[in-house]
């Protein structure tokens, strides 16, 4: 088990009860966690938990010259992939109304989702544009196939786990908490968003006055 945990963490996997129940239980044991941490301390890394403590992942122990390149590359990936992922979860919230989709462990039923999207032209358009963002769309692809492709991509990226292949039920993994952390940081540091918020607030206040 120790070996499996080490390799999963080295591969950049988020380990939670949804995605890797066995290795998650192993890491929940204090002695096992200590042995894993001792190993990673020797190679300048440490194991940490997601903000809501539902999953484990690997971080650099310090911010030196060597780590800087890796961090820059990681952030570049985030820049390229974050917006499509946010758009997907926003589409699910808009379609089902379920805000708890952003909580780790929540289930998404692909059949229910596509059933609701099919009934609303704006949601269908949104799915189509999302497909382009994920580079999952083609001219003759059906809506269902497009959604399946997006799900597949999110499973590969570690945000979802296919919990029931027969009924096409997916479960949100702890990586969602990483995504929320990134959004929080961007929200707090990017001045553009603050201006956007102020504008929104002004519009709301004007709306209230009217």
């Amino acid at each position, binding site marked *: 088990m120790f070996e499996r945990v080490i390799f999963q963490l080295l*591969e950049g996997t988020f380990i939670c009860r949804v995605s890797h129940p066995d290795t998650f239980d192993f890491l929940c044991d204090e002695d096992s966690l200590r042995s894993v941490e001792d190993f990673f301390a020797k190679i300048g890394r440490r194991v*940490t938990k997601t903000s809501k403590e539902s999953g484990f992942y690997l*971080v650099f122990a310090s*911010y030196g010259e060597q780590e800087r390149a890796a961090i820059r590359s990681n952030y570049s*990936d985030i820049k390229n992939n974050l917006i499509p992922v946010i758009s997907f*979860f926003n589409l699910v919230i808009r379609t089902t109304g379920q805000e708890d989709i952003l909580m780790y462990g929540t289930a998404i039923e692909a059949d229910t989702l596509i059933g609701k999207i099919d009934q609303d032209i704006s949601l269908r358009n949104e799915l189509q544009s999302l497909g382009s963002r994920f580079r999952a769309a083609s001219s003759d692809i059906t809506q269902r196939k497009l959604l399946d492709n997006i799900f597949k991509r999110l499973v590969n990226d570690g945000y979802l786990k296919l919990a029931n292949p027969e009924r096409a039920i997916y479960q949100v993994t702890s990586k969602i908490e990483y995504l929320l952390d990134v959004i929080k940081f*961007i929200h707090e540091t990017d001045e*553009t*968003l603050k201006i956007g918020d102020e504008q929104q607030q002004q519009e709301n206040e004007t709306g209230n006055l009217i």
Partner: protein
Amino acid sequence: MSRPLNDLLSNALNAIAAHRDLIHEVYSKGRYLKNGSKSDRDAYVLHQNRIFVADGRETYRLSSFITKLFDEITQKQRLFELLGDNAGAQVNRISQLLGEYANAVFAGRIEDADQVSAHFHDACADLSDTFSSGISKLLNLTETNFAVVSSIEAKSRQNAHYLRQAGRFSDALESLDRFGIEQELGAGHCDFEPLAISYRTLISDRKAEWHTEITHLLHFFETYLYRLRAIAPDVKRFRQFANFLQQNSGYELPDLEETHHHPLWMMRDAGISPVAYSDLRDASAYEYLREIAAQLPAPPIITVRERSPGRIERSANKPTETLKLQPHHVALGRFAKAASRSSTPLSALSWKRQNFPDIGVPDEIWLLLVINSKNSHRAEFAGLRYHRIERRGASRISRNLFVQDVMVHGS
């Protein structure tokens, strides 16, 4: 004069059976509005039997008892249901009935005692039912995460309410112990035997199970409430950001890697794919590697055809010819060489088992390949002599010949 009880009951059951479609419709829609059709008469009949309740002059709705029963059957979730509120009062009732029974017995009122005993049984059944159905509904809520509402705030409110309901069940269980009903039933002040049986089968035997389930429920609701409250600001921020992205489709994330503050998420190691090679000096791994090698397809052999001087290359697109040798081709070639060098006839099967045991070709197929090689025009098979070792089928009338082995040797 009131009609006999059985008549009332059978009328009500007949009315339910005869108008089940209407009842189904009213349960689904919530009410029935008079519309001058034949259904008005059916609704009136149901009202007479107290299945429907008049809800103003023009509307009927389903009796709350029946609605509750249907909710129970369909596990329908409603907002802020009162599941455990009644449990405490029901425990009090059991305790009071116990006292009443003792009084009747001490006073020698046997008929009264019998009646109280029957009511005690019903009270125990009611409490047992309240616990079972209430716990079942709460467990259903934990599985569906309050699916009847969608926003995080609404889910938090539902969760807080049902946490209180689970607490009521827990209090009721505690008060069962506090009243000491079990001890009183076992104390032997009077003949509590009929009551003790009811209490034991309906309540005592199930208390441990209820206690476990309620503890689980309390833990779930507390944890889930904590999670909901923790995630609420994140959800709000997420939706704001998603809306911003919808309105500003050209937005790009800022360059943040040069910032002095490095949050934990930024320090993530995105991972590597570790690769390891076999140590070919390690003899113990040899067998294992050989098995793997036998299963690998043979690499393509590329032969470049030299263009002879003075000739025009006609197939310019195909300068090379690719030949793929399968492992059994290689084995067959080697067998032919071994047979031609051998002074005595060589058994095809023994040779294969000795030299290529993991080739992935069954013995029967191998023999077939060896027999067919006789007709091939490959140089290594030319001049070989084949002798088939055959046997006839076991049956007396069988005309089948089975080749058991092929002996091959050079001429």
